[in-house]
């Protein structure tokens, strides 16, 4: 790459060829406002708020969409620019439902921030607002066209990161709008509910469907015993909503604030993540045994993980012929849910009908998952309400507290203990790492041969990762795996997942076990996490997750004593009869188009 000389606001600068004016300005700490631009997405250049002036060009140019040229003289703060930006902002506000007081994205709305910055307090132009009713059909995603600024960030997210294209721009001119197929309600379209569109919406046009009021009502109901579980990725992101830097862990403080809010029992999805490893690891070994020892050709391999409900719905829609390859294990949320209303109820002597089960998730797809008709093996809806990290932050604020000011407290028992292997579920590659730590040890009787249990080949943010583990000197029971090179792959983001599945279908690659997370970075980048999101933020959250792992007293799922106790007291053995009844599920073929 050759270096180009440019001048921004009279200050000379050298930048690499191909750099956009926006990024060049950023290097000099010159802030250019943006709306349609998002670091995770391709350039659109359609909001025009980032226009700047280039010497000798009579028109303004979009800083995000224009690469620098040698000798370019750039001005970012002129009368012409200011007038244009104010106009563009005012135009957007004439289309926008500015009922900001009642908008849940008020604190993360980029349009609102810009309006404040430019003090857009007078209405020059004519009100063009159309006020369609929000689409509340989905359990996960609420779509409110009245707040859409047509930046297409959601459309690009759905297309580029997830490869789904559930959203599109439709019509043109004054009728141009963000839409689904035939403007169908979100529940009826090919959508995985991943919520990545929400994370990238600059306004409140896309939000999670909120269940905050239902949860408060349950808490205030004296006849209800409300249990709450918290997913691994929540603890490394919740602090962002309280002004802490990305990656600041608030595990114990979060537990304390939940307890203070009035939840009767504060428990951990990490516990059921460890349980998932026991079930899924056992399932993998039994599939491998059937294939390698019994020569059973009908065994579906590779086996895919099943923790990510966005990924599950993706498979049901896009690759229904591969459904047998999905592990039948329920996700940790649902394993927890079914056990809360059976095992926990029994141990605590509470009538399961009086238990309200709440989960705090980095995820919007979990809301849909909890409402699946098959997720009622306890005899009740196993998980009653799913809240995102963002909703939890709101509830903490509503209760008049701040997560920062609490002293750390431990989780309650039972179903509160966890291992480091469970917390890394929150990062891409984490389930794989947790599974390898346990499976390798079960098969060989030894710890995985990685320093401090860090299985680095499965870590990191590369879209598709591959690794292999050579299995040697097995314990007698698993000698059928002697000398086998266990091949694994990991994908995150559904566009990557699609590439991987297609390569498998085309027999271009062969693996035994594959982890897929629907969201970029895994759950830590989930659709329910604090906004904004970008690679840097996701990296900080991942660092926090791996730090948490190393701080844990136990690091391997099979060493979780509350899980061992569960098998001893209640379930019997992994993949046993009761496990199958409660902890495993089935999948449904859905339309691809």
């Amino acid at each position, binding site marked *: 790459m050759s270096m180009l000389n440019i001048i921004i606001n009279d200050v000379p600068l050298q930048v690499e060829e191909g750099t956009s004016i926006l990024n060049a300005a950023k290097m000099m700490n010159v802030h250019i406002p943006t709306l349609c631009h998002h670091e995770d997405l391709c350039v659109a250049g359609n909001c025009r708020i980032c226009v700047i002036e280039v010497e000798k060009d009579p028109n303004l140019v979009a800083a995000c969409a224009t690469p620098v040229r040698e000798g370019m003289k750039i001005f970012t703060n002129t009368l012409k620019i200011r007038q244009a930006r104010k106009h563009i902002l005012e135009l957007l506000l004439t289309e926008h439902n500015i009922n900001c007081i009642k908008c849940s994205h008020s604190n993360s709305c980029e349009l609102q921030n810009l309006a404040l910055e430019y003090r857009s307090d007078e209405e020059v132009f004519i009100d063009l607002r159309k006020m369609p009713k929000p689409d509340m059909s989905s359990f996960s995603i609420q779509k409110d066209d009245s707040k859409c600024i047509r930046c297409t960030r959601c459309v690009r997210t759905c297309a580029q990161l997830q490869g*789904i*294209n*559930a*959203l*599109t*721009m*439709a*019509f*043109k001119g004054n009728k141009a709008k963000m*839409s*689904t*197929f*035939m403007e169908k309600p979100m529940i009826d*379209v*090919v959508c995985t509910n991943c919520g990545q569109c929400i994370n990238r919406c600059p306004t409140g046009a896309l939000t999670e469907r909120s269940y905050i009021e239902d949860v408060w009502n349950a808490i205030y109901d004296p006849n209800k015993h409300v249990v709450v579980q918290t997913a691994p990725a929540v603890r490394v992101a919740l602090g962002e909503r309280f002004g802490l830097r990305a990656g600041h862990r608030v595990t114990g403080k979060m537990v304390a604030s939940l307890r203070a809010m009035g939840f009767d029992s504060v428990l951990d999805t990490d516990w059921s993540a460890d349980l998932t490893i026991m079930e899924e690891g056992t399932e993998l070994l039994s599939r491998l045994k059937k294939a390698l020892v019994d020569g059973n050709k009908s065994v579906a391999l590779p086996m895919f993980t099943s923790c990510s409900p966005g990924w599950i719905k993706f498979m049901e829609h896009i690759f229904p012929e591969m459904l047998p390859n999905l592990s039948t294990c329920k996700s940790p949320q649902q394993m927890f849910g079914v056990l809360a209303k059976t095992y926990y109820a029994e141990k605590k002597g509470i009538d399961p009908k009086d238990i309200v089960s709440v989960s705090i998730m980095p995820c919007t797809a979990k809301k849909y998952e909890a409402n699946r008709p098959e997720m009622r093996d306890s005899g009740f809806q196993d998980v009653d309400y799913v809240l995102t990290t963002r909703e939890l932050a709101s509830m903490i604020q509503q209760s008049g507290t701040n997560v920062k000011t609490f002293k750390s407290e431990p989780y309650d028992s039972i179903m509160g203990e966890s291992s480091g292997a469970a917390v890394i579920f929150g990062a891409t590659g984490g389930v794989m790492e947790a599974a390898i730590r346990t499976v390798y040890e079960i098969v060989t009787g030894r710890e995985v041969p990685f320093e401090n249990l860090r299985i680095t080949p499965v870590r990191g943010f590369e879209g598709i990762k591959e690794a292999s583990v050579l299995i040697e000197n097995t314990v007698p029971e698993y000698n059928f795996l002697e000398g086998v090179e266990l091949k694994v792959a990991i994908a995150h983001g559904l566009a990557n997942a699609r590439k991987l599945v297609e390569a498998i279908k085309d027999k271009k690659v062969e693996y035994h076990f594959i982890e897929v997370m629907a969201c970029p970075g895994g759950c830590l980048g989930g659709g329910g996490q604090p906004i904004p999101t970008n690679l840097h933020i996701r990296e900080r959250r991942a660092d926090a997750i791996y730090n948490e792992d190393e701080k844990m007293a136990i690091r391997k799922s099979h060493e979780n004593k509350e899980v061992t106790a569960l098998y001893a007291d209640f379930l019997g053995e992994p993949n046993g009869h009761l496990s199958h009844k409660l902890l495993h599920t089935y999948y449904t073929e859905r339309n*691809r*188009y």
Partner: protein
Amino acid sequence: MSNSEEFISQLADKHGRRRESLMPILQEVVDEYYFLNEERMVNIAKELDISTAEVYGTASFYSFLSTEEQGKHVIRVCQTIICDMKRKEDIIEAITELIGIKPGETTHDGKFSLEYTNCLGWCHEGPAMLINDEPYTKLTPEKVKDILVSYMKK
């Protein structure tokens, strides 16, 4: 209207199954069935292996690829300035009087739709209209009646 699956599959054989095949396929489906409905767009998405939203988003961009019900003969009367000056409203009135529909409507028998369109490139011979692909120019209310009567027989 019968199931479009086979017809669309043949179109895909003819135009290919790449993204750039989408426009000609959409156009020929509209030629055959007059408009795009859910079933047709799903079949197109299947053939090209793209999402239905992409088919809909693309089709709805173009005025001639209607995603709402349209009649067999679509009458498009030019509304742009010169035809407007040459009294396009008289033409619309004559059509409305004859077939009983206003711009934006379709006759009950599904035979005609009437809409305004933008410049047809016949300003020098306005007022002008298209019926399907056929341009009609230097229109008068009397001339319009003769033209429509000939379409009623089609």
